[in-house]
Every structure is written in structure tokens, then in C-alpha cells.
């Protein structure tokens, strides 16, 4: 199975996302921001970084990149899409996920090993976790505060679409401690913390993030 990993100018964690895909025994396919088709991949990861420098607003410019049109089309048809950090911001800007990410309440960039509670284990990216499981993965962002209209937040909570919640302290002022959410059909997931940096305790705090990529492989193979 093939998982596309998009590189925009300024993307940083694409190598990490590709490595995570390989660790889950899938093939990583590099997708370039200028691509207009998805090269036959079964799922797409929009990785972290600072696309186009993110000077204007995180993800604001990347969402217009040519590759985003086929991503949006495929996601609407149910292709699994994962946005990590800047990728989450881009998916929100592109309208695939609700809400927006804003400046951390501390006004500082924060890099730390963060506990998360997995609250939805039905998405293709989370089937391998037990509901309520706590996992530790790195969080590293300056604009990670999740915000949305109250009605949107209520809807997310009501429909069980909060996929990850910060545990042990809210690092950035996100509403309801939200760390990650999914689309209405559950196929598109975005989160601020970085599961791809937690696939091996040698280079990350834990290997708790690997199960996300393994979940995907299982879900796609089962489908």
C-alpha cells in the first residue's frame, strides 16, 4: 500500500513522516506541492513544518497549492488523510477540517513531550489504540491553540469528533484541551502533536505514535 507525503516549500517533517510510513511497512510516496495528481496513493499525510514560511498565517498559502485540489477531492470521497501540525493547519485552512489554530497562549513556541488521550478509535488512523489510552508524543508549535465557533466545538464534542485531547496540562490554550479532530466522515484527521517523531524510543520520547501509521495500514488493507 502506498501513502503519499506532501512536501511544500518549507515543509520540514516530511522525512519523518516518510520514515514512519516505512516503519509501518507501507511504501512512502513523495508528493510535491506542484503535483496535480496523487500518483495512485491510498492515503495522504500532510506533514509539519512552515509551508511558505507561514509568515502570513499558518497554512494560509499552502492550501492553494496545486496538490491540494486532488487531496480535497480524494478526502471528500473517503481517502484517509492525516494532517500533522502545519498539516493540520493546512487542512483547516482548506476547509477539510473545522476550526483554526492560533498563537499559543504563552506566546512562545513550545517543544515538549506531551501526553494525549485517544478519544476516538474509529478513524483509520486510530484503530490500533484503546479508547481512553494515553500516549506520549512530541508537541512542537507556536500556533497550536485550537479555536472554533462554539457551535462547531459543540458539534465536534457531540459527534465524538475530538480524536485526541491533551492530558496533564493544556500546553497552548486550545479550547476543551483539543489536540486533534476529524472530519464528519471520520476519514480526515488533524492533530498538532507529532506521532511521526514517536516511532522509536531511540529518537523520540516513546514509540507510541507508530500505532497511528499501523492503524492506517490495517484499515486500508481491511477495506
Amino acid at each position, binding site marked *: 500500500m502506498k501513502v503519499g507525503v506532501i512536501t511544500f516549500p518549507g515543509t520540514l517533517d516530511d522525512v519523518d513522516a516518510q520514515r514512519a510510513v516505512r516503519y509501518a511497512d507501507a511504501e512512502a510516496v513523495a508528493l510535491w506541492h506542484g503535483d496535480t495528481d496523487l500518483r495512485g496513493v491510498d492515503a495522504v499525510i500532510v506533514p509539519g513544518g512552515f509551508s511558505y514560511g507561514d509568515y502570513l498565517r499558518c497554512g494560509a498559502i499552502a492550501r492553494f497549492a496545486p496538490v491540494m485540489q486532488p487531496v480535497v477531492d480524494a478526502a471528500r470521497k473517503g481517502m484517509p488523510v492525516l494532517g500533522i501540525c502545519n498539516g493540520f493547519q493546512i487542512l483547516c485552512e482548506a476547509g477539510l477540517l473545522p476550526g483554526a489554530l492560533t498563537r499559543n497562549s504563552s506566546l512562545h513556541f513550545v517543544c515538549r513531550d506531551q501526553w494525549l488521550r485517544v478519544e476516538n478509535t474509529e478513524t483509520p488512523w486510530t484503530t490500533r489504540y484503546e479508547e481512553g489510552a494515553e500516549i506520549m508524543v512530541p508537541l512542537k508549535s507556536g500556533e497550536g491553540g485550537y*479555536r472554533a465557533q462554539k457551535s462547531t466545538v459543540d458539534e465536534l464534542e457531540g459527534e465524538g469528533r475530538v480524536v485526541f485531547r491533551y492530558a496533564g496540562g493544556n500546553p497552548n*490554550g486550545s479550547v476543551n484541551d483539543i489536540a486533534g479532530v476529524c472530519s464528519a466522515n471520520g476519514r480526515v484527521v488533524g492533530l498538532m502533536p507529532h506521532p511521526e517523531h514517536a516511532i522509536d524510543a531511540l529518537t523520540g520520547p516513546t514509540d507510541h505514535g507508530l500505532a497511528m501509521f499501523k492503524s492506517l495500514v490495517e484499515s486500508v488493507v481491511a477495506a
Partner: protein
Amino acid sequence: MARVVVDVMPKPEILDPQGQAVARALPRLGFDGISDVRQGKHFELEVADDVDDETLAKIAVGLLSNPVIEDFVVRRVGQE
């Protein structure tokens, strides 16, 4: 050529940590009498004369601001 200004501000109901940080700092620095501060972005564009208001609004809403959390105002401020 015309100069166009676009101001983008966080929506009133959205938390503005930057503005709040300023508001908190003011009394510490001895400045009283400022009851609220909000911080947004200010853009200055040099625009050809044939760019119409509709196009400017599209740029403001589509690129310069995020309607989920921000409001904007467009103003033409001068001719060159």
C-alpha cells in the same frame, strides 16, 4: 497605482492572547487608563488602478484573513 490597506482583526469572540499580553504589560510599565487591547494585522498593498473592490475583497477574505477567526476591513487610502 493606488495604496490599499487591509486590517485583519481576531473576531471579538475569539481569544486574543497577543492583545491580552499587551494589555497586561501596560499597567506594569506604568501606563494606566487602557482598558482593552486587541492585536491584528495590517497590510499595505500597491494596487494597479484596474483592480476593483470585489477583487480586493476576495484577496482579503481568501488569503489575508481566515474567516473562521478573523474579520477584515479594506480601505483605499491614496493614489500615486
